[in-house]
């Protein structure tokens, strides 16, 4: 039992928190702008690498470098929107999706150019894990889970208590109605990018701390992030966060040796869980758990 918690549930929650941060941003973007943002993964990788650069340049920890990561991902997201997406806003959503795919490649090329293709890790001092009644948990895992929970809470306050947040939800519910009732759509779109870019920078740094940094790290979790957003009901930020947690737990627990020591799923096939969840959602509940847009 303890083994299940230590080696499967806790890593699952950590991975789930990272997926949740990324999927929430995807879901917000989808809700407001109605397109699947394929550059989200590479924006995440960019955030992680900027944090790495800042932490080596200034000799600070990865946690302290998070503001630097966000200080780059936010302007990059806003610039991509102003330069490319804004000009395509009147085309089909599919064209925006293709455009974001191009942005993804551009971001990845920049990461390769500056940081090279070799996987690297954040400088990580060796600290003993917290132990309590046989329960062992790495300190960085505690911080990742707490950090994600805190950002979810702050996002909740923004969406439910501020005027801007309400405008955002209004636009996500019915863009035309929002426009004619005087919601400043351009401002809402900018705010959406800011929030999504901050969340994805966090996700990138957390993913880098949990595993390692490589230029395709973000693209590798893009499928899982989309699966989480769709599972939660696309356009529903809380649903996406919940979907992320479920997916992270499912991915880690899928390899649990439940039957006679053999893992349920070979660990090499772990990333297939996201696909299975995606297909199952599309088959049985395409609107997602929390009734997103279909």
């Amino acid at each position, binding site marked *: 039992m303890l083994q299940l918690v230590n080696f499967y549930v806790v890593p699952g929650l950590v991975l789930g928190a990272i997926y949740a941060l990324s999927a929430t941003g995807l879901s917000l973007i989808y809700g407001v702008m109605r397109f699947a943002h394929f550059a989200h993964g590479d924006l995440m990788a960019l955030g992680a690498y900027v944090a790495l650069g800042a932490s080596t340049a200034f000799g600070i920890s990865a946690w302290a470098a998070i503001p630097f990561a966000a200080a780059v991902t936010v302007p990059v997201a806003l610039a991509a929107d102003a330069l490319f997406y804004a000009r395509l806003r009147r*085309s089909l959503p599919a064209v925006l999706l293709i455009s974001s795919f191009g942005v993804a490649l551009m971001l990845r090329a920049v990461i*390769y150019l500056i940081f090279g293709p070799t996987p690297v890790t954040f400088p990580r001092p060796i600290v003993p894990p917290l132990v309590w009644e046989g329960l062992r948990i790495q300190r960085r895992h505690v911080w990742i889970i707490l950090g994600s929970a805190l950002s979810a809470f702050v996002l909740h306050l923004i969406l439910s208590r501020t005027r801007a947040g309400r405008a955002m939800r209004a636009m996500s519910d019915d863009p035309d109605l929002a426009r004619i009732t005087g919601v400043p759509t351009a401002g809402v779109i900018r705010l959406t990018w800011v929030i999504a870019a901050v969340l994805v920078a966090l996700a990138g740094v957390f993913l880098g701390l949990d595993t390692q940094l490589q230029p395709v790290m973000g693209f590798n979790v893009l499928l899982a992030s989309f699966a989480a957003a769709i599972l939660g009901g696309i356009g529903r930020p809380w649903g996406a966060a919940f979907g992320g947690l479920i997916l992270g737990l499912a991915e880690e627990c899928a390899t649990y040796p439940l039957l006679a020591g053999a893992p349920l799923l070979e660990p*090499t096939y772990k990333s297939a869980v996201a696909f299975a969840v995606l297909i199952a959602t599309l088959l049985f509940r395409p609107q997602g758990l929390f009734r997103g847009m279909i």
Partner: protein
Amino acid sequence: MEQALLYAATLGTLAGIYGVLALGLNLQWGLTGLMNFGGLGFVAVGAYTAALLTAPPSPTHLGGFGVPWWLAWPASACASALLALPIGAIALRLRADYLAIATIGIAEIVRLVVRNEDWLTGGPLGVTAIPRPFESLGTPLGQIAFLLLVGAVLSLLFAAAQAAAKSPFGRALRALRDDEEAAKAAGKNPARLRLHAFLLGAAFMGVGGAMMTAFFKFIGPDALEPVTVTFLVWVMLIAGGSGNNWGAVAGAVAVWAIWAATDWLAAQLPGEAATRAAYVRLFLIGLALQVILIARPEGLIGERVGSTQR
């Protein structure tokens, strides 16, 4: 002289193969509006099907059945279409974006299977010694004969794609893409039409994969990568003109020429700079896509519908 001839044959062969892939994507995206970002998966399945069927027997992977290419290539088309069937049946009922996401998943699953199922695909070792049609003709002649074969396949598939685009089937696909409600009102079955277009496009990609393995005489997990298979084909189609088969082929040839030329230029640079040049090229191809989408969304040769005399 012979060196230059061989180089030209290589470029021409690959341009022809890319032409087939672009035609396949044009059936899906250009004609029907289906977003397939998992081209790699369908190409890989076609490639491995042909590889396992035509290769000599080997203990490192399944089969090696020594089947002739003219049987193996159609089998590749069927295998890729078979892969497209379940995913199409599930995702095509829903929003277009969901298909794009699901196809990324398909590519990932194919990658996992290829890498891990050693008994089937030879795992990281891949499949080697795949015969190439006409290689018995000797060095320059064999390559040229293969180039002609690829050209013939491209022409055949082009004719098929043109016939499909002009047929009632093609018109129904366009109608569906542009106004689903109107098409439905006219008694068209959107799900079935879309599925047919998706399967047909996947079959084209399978043939492209089969020709690629025959050309390189090898297939392995790292032989195909998303940038050069999936993404480059998208750029080709968008640059050439989606919805138009001429545009698809023209885009394939033009973008491939640029790609190969920059490859050659980068190779002239010293070691480290050559690697960096490859990244710069990746950036520029992403930027080029943006410029085309914004400045010339119809591409080199736009779609022509309506009057038949044009």
